[in-house]
């Protein structure tokens, strides 16, 4: 044996060196793999109406601040559909499928609003990259948000904020907002077939669960990439920059951020309302797991009582779902949504006085459970108002503010209301979310901050025939869209129903209990 080794060793050594040299040579001579993604020059008729950035580089996704890690467009054929992920991750898929994230780019309310804005300007479709960057990132990153769509469509672009739109993220800028996320959507995925995924699960986990990505998507700052929104001249008529949505900053400056409670803790808890109650009780333990429902405040999109009209509003049915399963999942999430809304607010009596001919009192609208303002988001459509009814000892109504006309779908114009108004260049209120002609933003009443309250004062005249004790009935209402929007933009006479966040009754003169 020793003889054999000694005799063949030189040949083995030479062969080994030659093999290594051959491999190195082949590696050097082999053409490098093409860079993943698509070059701007390879997308015919792509419009760049906003010009280059300060460094002279093109801004293909502007006015959205969304970017890809390597600066190239995504190949639509290679963006994984959530329906593909569902094969191995059915629980996560079924949590995500009824969510607003899943229909962010396809729901009819959103689509019609974008179309109405696009029609306002010759570069309207390109301006709409501002909206689509957060609502339909797959479409923007593939280069299809363009007046001439020369890029092939794919299922993935209809899925709004799908799996890969979070699980490839490498950077977020919550101060900049407007979609300020960087996605490694071209190079951060593994592209393995299903059998290979099973054979090499670690590669898949590395691709979609990179350490940096997992750390990033667990932070509130990640959400701030889209839940911070400002208008400027790229997408509106606002000079300078004006905040439209400050949800991330509201949370960042709140007790919740100071105590390590993140957006994900509440909105991805398996039972968000129960988790909010847990936090309110002082128990800051994290949820046992993070579900992908992203439960929020839009109760309308989960109102299964609307039947097929709900399918119309939600923009149809996602790939990978049947009608029956879709309805079942929506109904389940609807319950969670309504429960979360009911956990958010409270009402209390403040400073009451029964004087001759007058009733004076304050109603405190309290933000008890939300880690951001109430209401939050872009609140030109979503708004909250207080309804107050005062009755005398006989039950007769002597004062009513904030009534809702369920026939015309209109809120009392004199109601105490928490809403921001879009104002056009002529100083007129824009009731139907026309961002592209908005010149200024003003607040009717700013939202109630986390763990804060906003006291509304009432001074009610009492006629001599009305006698006490008096009863004050207070209801706090929330509504996801104005009727003008439904009619002008959605082109339906659907009355958008309001949702009662909380209600309370108080006696005047106040009892000791109510005074506390």
């Amino acid at each position, binding site marked *: 044996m020793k003889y054999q080794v000694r005799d063949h060793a030189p040949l083995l050594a030479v062969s080994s060196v030659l093999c290594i040299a051959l491999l190195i040579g082949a590696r050097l001579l082999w053409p490098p793999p093409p860079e993943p993604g698509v070059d701007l020059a390879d997308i015919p008729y792509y419009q760049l109406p906003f010009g280059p950035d300060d460094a002279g580089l093109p801004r293909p996704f502007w006015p959205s601040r969304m970017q890809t890690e390597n600066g190239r467009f995504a190949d639509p054929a290679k963006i994984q559909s959530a329906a593909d992920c569902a094969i191995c991750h059915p629980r996560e898929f079924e949590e995500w499928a009824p969510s607003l994230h899943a229909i962010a780019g396809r729901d009819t309310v959103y689509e019609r609003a974008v179309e109405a804005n696009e029609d*306002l300007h010759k570069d309207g479709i390109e301006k709409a990259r501002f909206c689509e960057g957060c609502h339909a990132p797959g479409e923007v990153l593939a280069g299809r948000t363009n007046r001439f769509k*020369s890029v092939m469509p794919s299922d993935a672009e209809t899925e709004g904020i799908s799996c890969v739109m979070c699980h490839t993220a490498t950077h977020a800028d919550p101060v900049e907002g407007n979609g300020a996320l960087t996605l490694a959507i071209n190079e951060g995925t593994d592209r393995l077939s299903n059998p290979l995924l099973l054979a090499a699960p670690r590669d898949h986990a590395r691709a979609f669960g990179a350490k940096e990505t997992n750390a990033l998507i667990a932070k509130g700052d990640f959400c701030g990439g889209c839940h911070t929104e400002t208008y400027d001249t790229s997408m509106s008529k606002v000079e300078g920059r004006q905040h439209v949505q400050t949800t991330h900053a509201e949370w960042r400056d709140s007790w919740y951020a100071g105590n390590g409670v993140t957006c994900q803790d509440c909105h991805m808890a398996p039972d968000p309302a129960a988790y909010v109650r847990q936090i309110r009780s002082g128990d800051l333990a994290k949820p046992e797991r993070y579900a992908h429902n992203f439960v929020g405040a839009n109760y309308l999109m989960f109102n299964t009582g609307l039947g097929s009209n709900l*399918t119309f509003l939600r923009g149809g049915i996602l790939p990978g779902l049947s009608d029956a399963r879709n309805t079942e999942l929506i109904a389940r999430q609807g319950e969670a949504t309504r429960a979360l809304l009911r956990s958010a607010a409270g009402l209390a009596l403040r400073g009451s006085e029964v004087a001759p001919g007058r009733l004076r009192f304050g109603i405190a609208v309290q933000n008890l459970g939300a880690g951001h303002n109430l209401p939050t988001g872009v609140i030109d459509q979503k708004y909250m108002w207080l309804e107050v009814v005062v009755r005398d000892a006989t039950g007769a109504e002597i004062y009513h503010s904030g009534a809702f006309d369920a026939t015309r779908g209109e809120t009392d114009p004199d109601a105490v209301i928490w809403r921001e108004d879009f104002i056009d260049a002529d100083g007129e209120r824009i009731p139907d979310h026309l961002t592209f002609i908005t010149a200024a933003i003003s607040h009717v009443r700013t939202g109630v901050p986390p763990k804060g309250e906003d006291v509304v004062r009432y001074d009610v005249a009492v006629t001599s025939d009305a006698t006490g004790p008096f009863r004050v009935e207070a209801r706090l209402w929330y509504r996801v869209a104005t009727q003008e929007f439904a009619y002008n933009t959605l082109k*339906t006479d659907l009355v958008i129903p309001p949702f009662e966040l909380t209600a309370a009754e108080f006696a005047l003169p106040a009892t000791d209990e109510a005074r506390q």
Partner: protein
Amino acid sequence: MGRNGNLVAAAFVYVLLAPGPVRAENDAELRGLENVKQFTLEHSRALSAQAGLLEQALSTYAGTIEAHKGDYAAAWAASGPELSRQVANVRDLWLEASNRYETIEGIVAGIPEMAKYDLILDAGNPGTESEDVAEYDLTLPDGTVLPRPGNLFHGITEPLFWGMSESGIRLPADLDGDGKIVRGEMLFDANLGLGAARALAFWATALEADMTSWKPNRADAFTSVAVMTPTVGDYFGEWKESQFISGEIGAFVARSRLVDVIGIMSGCRKMYAEAISPVVAASDGDLDSRITASFEELLGLVEDTYAREQAGAEFGVEEADALGNEAQDIADRIVAMVLQAAAKNGVEIRG
């Protein structure tokens, strides 16, 4: 010119006159372009005719109001049911006229010489804006002149006829007689309505006249297919929504559109087959085959769906959604491929 020069000249004349593939391709393209023009003219004439009907309907409505000396309440009290029918008729005629224009909007907006009509009829801003202003003044029957008031379809008449603009509402009225007045139930300003309808008829006729002298070209053909095909997808989407929307909510634009889809899609296929296919086939036969097959697939889908609808089929939400998505997907693929072909052939896409 020497002997060689004569040979070159003879060869040049031969190439121009002799039958052959190059010549045949040019002929086919020219014939196709002429068909594009005929398609556009046909729909332009239909728009003019529809705008004329709308003007007549507004004239009748204004006459009813005028019979009561402009007192809308008195007119409603005396002729409520008649006014309700007149408003409904105005809205139906408006929708038809708007659809007629949308069919050719892609071509009109894409031709520089015609673009002003797109601004006046459908897309232009009022004079208070700095760009894309609809350059015309609107004279109303009472002599009032509105300088550069914005486009006629979506800027003036749609918000007026549907009560979307508070300033145009003259009297809230229970148009459908169900005992309640909801948003959109109202009598609108007859003076503004009639003036705008007259302007619509005038500008539609002017567009038709200019269209007659238009000389179509390759860029127009590509542009028209690239712009019109996704519009067809929108029509199919409206059909899809009309399958969804039921019960207590009504949508005033959602109604079955399959007949429109077939008409428009056939026009697109005709334009592609006759004016564009010869160009694409010469540079990329495979791409031409795929585009042609996709048009056949789309038309097959729509015609089959329409045949089933005519036979009494009712489409469930899931099926209507799947059909709508499939149609949109095919249309999107067609547009993407047509644009890729245009890029390969150096065609400028306008619009």
